[in-house]
């Protein structure tokens, strides 16, 4: 393996002592862009151009081009506008944003300030999942330091510009990662996604125009502007620029979050994270978090970690949450666990997801208990197909994809359970 270059953007300060302190950040070029903006040396249009050049796509999972998203907002529209950061990070397998908040919170703060400036926001909220107390403390610590340094608040550094940042803590609900559910949650309601249109860019937080981006997306912005959009674009591949933070977990020797360049070979990432544990063989990979399709080991051969390559291999980059499953993994049990997750986390609002996730779980659970019936496989395929595309938000689809893909690649394991009442590893 050629030397894999790491930590060029979001995790660039992770090796430093007290990397979360403003002193560290300032000593490493922090808030330079912000000061430049306040001095009037960088216009919103220039920033959007640079972000477009960088070819950065949203890191929250959907991969929407960030520059384009920002250009939807009319910064001159009267009334309040908001920038919202999505640090809900609840998709199973995902834990990359946590490290940004823990080790480089100021870069996120600066990213949010810049985005806020571009869209003409009066304030920004970072929605942090409720369990993330330490990251929350680091993030609010960073806000406080920035405010103390006069970089945030009223009439920032005499620029006449008011802008403030806040954190909002979640209460334990995966659905709040969905951007409109997240907005509802900040408003003090249940996290039930809104029907779109209207989109947040016109009707967002508190009914005001709002831009929502993922933590990693926003934390990348200061570096994009410091080093240039082209620099960032060149780090990645044709269809997606930059570095990407990958969360690698499961049957691996050194699980953890790794920032490498977009397009890094899967094999390199695997090696970087120490290879499969216990000297076992790779069985399957879930490349982008639990809602992306599971891929058998053969499919990941030669695959690189970027949107197009993973799509070609049959799955999706998602949030870059790579779950490694070794040869001993019981796929029925794994799917059982995932179907429970979506059943547990469905917001309950729309019929197919509320009723369908429970149905799928029950059938898989029954199969796992050895009470499966031959027709169950067909039934599962149909139920997942009936959820897909008929729901308000992405959770329904996210619940259907694992069922579809597990059955597609591992139907024989389900059949084994149905026929023998036990897994392929148990002696019949």
């Amino acid at each position, binding site marked *: 393996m050629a030397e894999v270059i790491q930590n060029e953007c979001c995790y660039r300060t992770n090796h430093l002592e007290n990397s979360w302190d403003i002193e560290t950040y300032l000593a490493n070029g922090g808030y330079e862009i912000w000061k430049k903006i306040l001095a009037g040396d960088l216009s919103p249009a220039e920033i959007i151009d640079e972000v477009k050049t960088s070819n950065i796509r949203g890191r929250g999972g959907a991969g929407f081009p960030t520059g384009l998203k920002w250009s939807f907002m009319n910064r001159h529209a009267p009334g*309040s506008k908001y920038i919202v950061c999505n640090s809900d*990070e*609840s*998709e*199973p*397998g*995902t*834990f990359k*944003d*946590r490290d940004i908040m823990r080790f480089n919170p100021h870069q996120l703060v600066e990213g949010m300030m810049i985005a806020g400036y571009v869209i003409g926001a009066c304030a920004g909220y970072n929605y942090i*999942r*409720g*369990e*993330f*107390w*330490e990251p929350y403390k680091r993030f609010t610590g960073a806000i406080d330091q920035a405010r103390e340094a006069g970089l945030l608040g009223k009439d920032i550094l005499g620029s006449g510009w008011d802008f403030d940042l*806040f954190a*909002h*803590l*979640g*209460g*334990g*609900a*995966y659905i709040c990662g969905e951007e409109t559910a997240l907005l509802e*949650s*900040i*408003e*003090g*309601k*249940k*996290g039930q996604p809104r029907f779109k249109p209207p989109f947040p860019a016109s009707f967002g937080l*508190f009914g005001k125009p709002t831009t929502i981006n993922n933590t990693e997306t926003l934390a990348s912005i200061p570096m994009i502007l410091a080093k240039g959009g082209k620099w960032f674009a060149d780090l990645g591949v044709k269809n997606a620029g930059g570095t990407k933070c990958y*969360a*690698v*977990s*499961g*049957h691996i020797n050194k*699980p*953890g*979050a790794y920032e490498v360049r977009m397009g890094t070979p899967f094999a390199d990432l695997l090696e970087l994270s120490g290879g499969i544990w216990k000297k076992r063989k790779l069985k399957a990979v*879930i490349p982008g978090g*639990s809602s992306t399709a599971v891929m058998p080991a053969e499919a990941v051969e030669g695959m690189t970690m970027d949107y197009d390559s993973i799509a070609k291999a049959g799955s999706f980059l998602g949030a870059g*949450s790579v*779950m490694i*499953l070794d040869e001993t*993994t019981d796929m029925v*049990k*794994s799917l059982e*666990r*995932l179907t429970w*997750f979506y059943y*547990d*986390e469905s*917001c309950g609002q729309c019929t197919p997801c509320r009723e369908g996730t429970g149905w799928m779980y029950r059938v898989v659970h029954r199969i796992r208990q050895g009470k499966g019936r031959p027709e169950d496989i067909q039934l599962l395929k149909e139920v997942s197909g009936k959820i897909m595309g008929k729901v308000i938000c992405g959770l329904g689809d996210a619940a259907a994809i694992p069922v579809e893909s597990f059955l597609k690649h591992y139907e024989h394991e389900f059949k084994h359970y149905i026929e023998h009442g036990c897994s392929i590893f148990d002696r019949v």
Partner: protein
Amino acid sequence: MSEKNQLAEELKVSVIQGDVKTRIDRWIANYPEENRKSALMPALRIVQETSNGYLTTELMDQIAEYLQVRPIEVYEVATFYSMYQHKPVGRHQICLCTNLSCMLRGSDELLEHIKHKISVTNTGEVSPDGKFSVRKVECAGACGGAPMMWIGKDYHENLTEETIDEILDGLE
């Protein structure tokens, strides 16, 4: 309101006073004035923290009154999010992640170990000494340290039976 109701109202002492009130007020200040309801989730958390770790109808009603929303709006939110509890819990509530990444690294076995250690047969039960209860939770965003659990505000990662014992024994 009838006189009787009024009297009852006066006698009921709200938990939203002193430090709790200050903390909730700080959150209220984070949102536009007309969006007082935004402080509902922080208020639920703070009240839960200071009231034996779970929320009663009465506590929720007090929050509703303080934030000027209908009680049902509070019940809706408090039952939607999984971090709010509605039944008694141990002094320390062990939240063990059992989602895929942790499961692949042995969380199921650890759950058995914990149950045995704190002498409960089921999740959600409070240990005889009132010190612990254990709950299975969904992915907590720390799969890099799987298996993991969180207790209160702290994450504990790369768990083994030994480290669990050490952590639990170290708690008051």
